[in-house]
């Protein structure tokens, strides 16, 4: 009886521990969200989404320029980084057995580990300084450098999950290697690849350091990719360290919008995976 009881207690304790760990993880997110809602939700109004910054001394104004800036810069980062990342991931999974595969994997893992501020300095050195001005384009490239290796590694994992029997079935039908990879293997892995891209997007949407050296930030509404541009993290940073209560309120609201954007991307990623599973 004693060993059985002991085993039951041990099992219960371990189960409890996993519940506790899960609760802690949710608690952290819940606490952040609760604080952001408490401090920021009050400042979320129509003006916040439609107006840009106003000169000091005036009341009102909003984050429209920063929201649009983030969407543009992240969109540019995806336009550059997703094709490179997905292509690299497919290469790694399907043809990356040799020395070149090892090299690409090593580079991707190293890039993944580089602090984002270093990537910002890199983009400043190679794009901002030669061009002589801060540009949203440089910000997009910097974020793409963070996004591409994440997308490459998740794409590789997702493509590797496709059973080899499907590859063989396609090849036995007289499919060429490239056609097998694109029309059967990548199509089968596509939901996982899309999920990986969305998660990577959510990750770079919150990056601040690389943008400090590249997009710089801008108090005015701008859609010019070859000029300085505002972004949510930059605007939050500037307003949060500024001396005015009005700025602080708007920084809280901006942080809430940013985290909601990230949550939205994450939810979307989950939905894509789930839709695939029920297909």
């Amino acid at each position: 009886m004693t060993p059985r009881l002991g085993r039951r207690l041990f099992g219960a304790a371990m189960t409890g521990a996993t519940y506790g760990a899960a609760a802690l993880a949710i608690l952290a997110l819940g606490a952040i969200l609760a604080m952001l809602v408490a401090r920021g939700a009050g400042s979320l109004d129509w003006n916040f989404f439609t107006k840009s910054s106003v000169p000091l001394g005036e009341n009102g104004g909003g984050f429209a320029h920063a929201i649009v800036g983030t969407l543009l810069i992240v969109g540019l980062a995806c336009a550059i980084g997703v094709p490179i990342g997905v292509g690299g991931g497919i290469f790694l999974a399907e043809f990356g057995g040799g020395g070149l595969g090892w090299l690409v994997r090593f580079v991707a893992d190293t890039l993944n580990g580089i602090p984002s501020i270093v990537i910002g300095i890199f983009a400043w050195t190679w794009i901002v300084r030669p061009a002589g001005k801060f540009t949203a384009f440089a910000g997009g490239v910097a974020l793409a450098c963070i996004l591409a290796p994440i997308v490459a590694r998740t794409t590789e994992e997702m493509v590797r999950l496709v059973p080899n029997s499907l590859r063989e079935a396609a090849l036995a039908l007289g499919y060429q290697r490239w056609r097998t990879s694109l029309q059967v293997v990548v199509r089968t892995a596509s939901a996982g690849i899309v999920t990986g891209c969305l998660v990577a997007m959510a990750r770079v949407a919150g990056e601040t350091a690389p943008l400090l050296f590249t997009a710089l930030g801008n108090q005015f509404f701008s859609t010019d990719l070859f000029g300085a541009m505002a972004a949510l993290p930059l605007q939050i940073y500037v307003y949060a360290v500024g001396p005015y209560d009005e700025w602080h309120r708007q920084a809280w609201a901006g942080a809430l919008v940013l985290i909601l954007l990230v949550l939205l991307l994450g939810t979307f990623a989950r939905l894509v995976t789930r839709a695939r599973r029920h297909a």
Partner: protein
Amino acid sequence: MLAVTPEPLARAPAVTLPAPRVAPADETPARQPEPRLAAQGLTAWYGADAGVRDVTLAFRSNTVTALIGPSGCGKSTLLRALNRMHELVPGTRVAGRVLLDGHDLYAPGVNPIQVRRSIGMVFQKPTPFPTMSIAENVAAGLRVGPRLSRGEREAIVERALKRAALWDEVRDRLHHSALALSGGQQQRLCVARTIAPEPEVILLDEPTASLDPSASARIEDLVHELKREFTVVIVTHNMQQAARISDVTAFFYLGELVEAGPTARIFTAPTKAQTEAYVTGRFG
């Protein structure tokens, strides 16, 4: 290993032969159908190991040839060498010839992709493409052939599904996912996908190994139908199945062809002791 242990004298045969559905193949060459596919001195290596050694064997048209033998005897390797699938595994090599209507498939300049379009293959586990509907699965092999109109493609899909005895079960859900089908239906779908581009030869690699008995029986019926139009080669672990559906049986052991001949003779009067030991269930 051939463990020849003394056996009781009176022993019921492990294989009960069903009544042949067709007249047993005559062994005189004049009355045999033309060999469609032939392996000549075929050796297939995995690295330094020869999975198949110096096999010479002809496969006649409108005939089901069964390849039997214990696990690891090289029957699947031979099958994969026939349609040049073997070489897709890194470190493999093939020597010898495979003739399809007299043309060597391993001759320089022969495109293995073309070879695989004329020699179709069905695998042990059903492999429907998960992102494609039932109709798209059947039409998958047509994509790499000449361009077809929508009507032509639909007609080929319907005909292939009918020939694979699946049409009545899926006609109302052609555009649904193939994953919703049962295992046996999926395997018949794979047969339909294989025959849709009209290959010359169909290779089946233990096609019923993952199926329950009734689904297996349907596949066996299907194999019997397929030989009207195709040259069929089937690898099987199941000797009763080989006896039921094949006209010619080839027995392999340790990578070598031990004996080949009309199925009825291989199971009743094999000439080699190893064959007899295997078909009577003494090893393997």
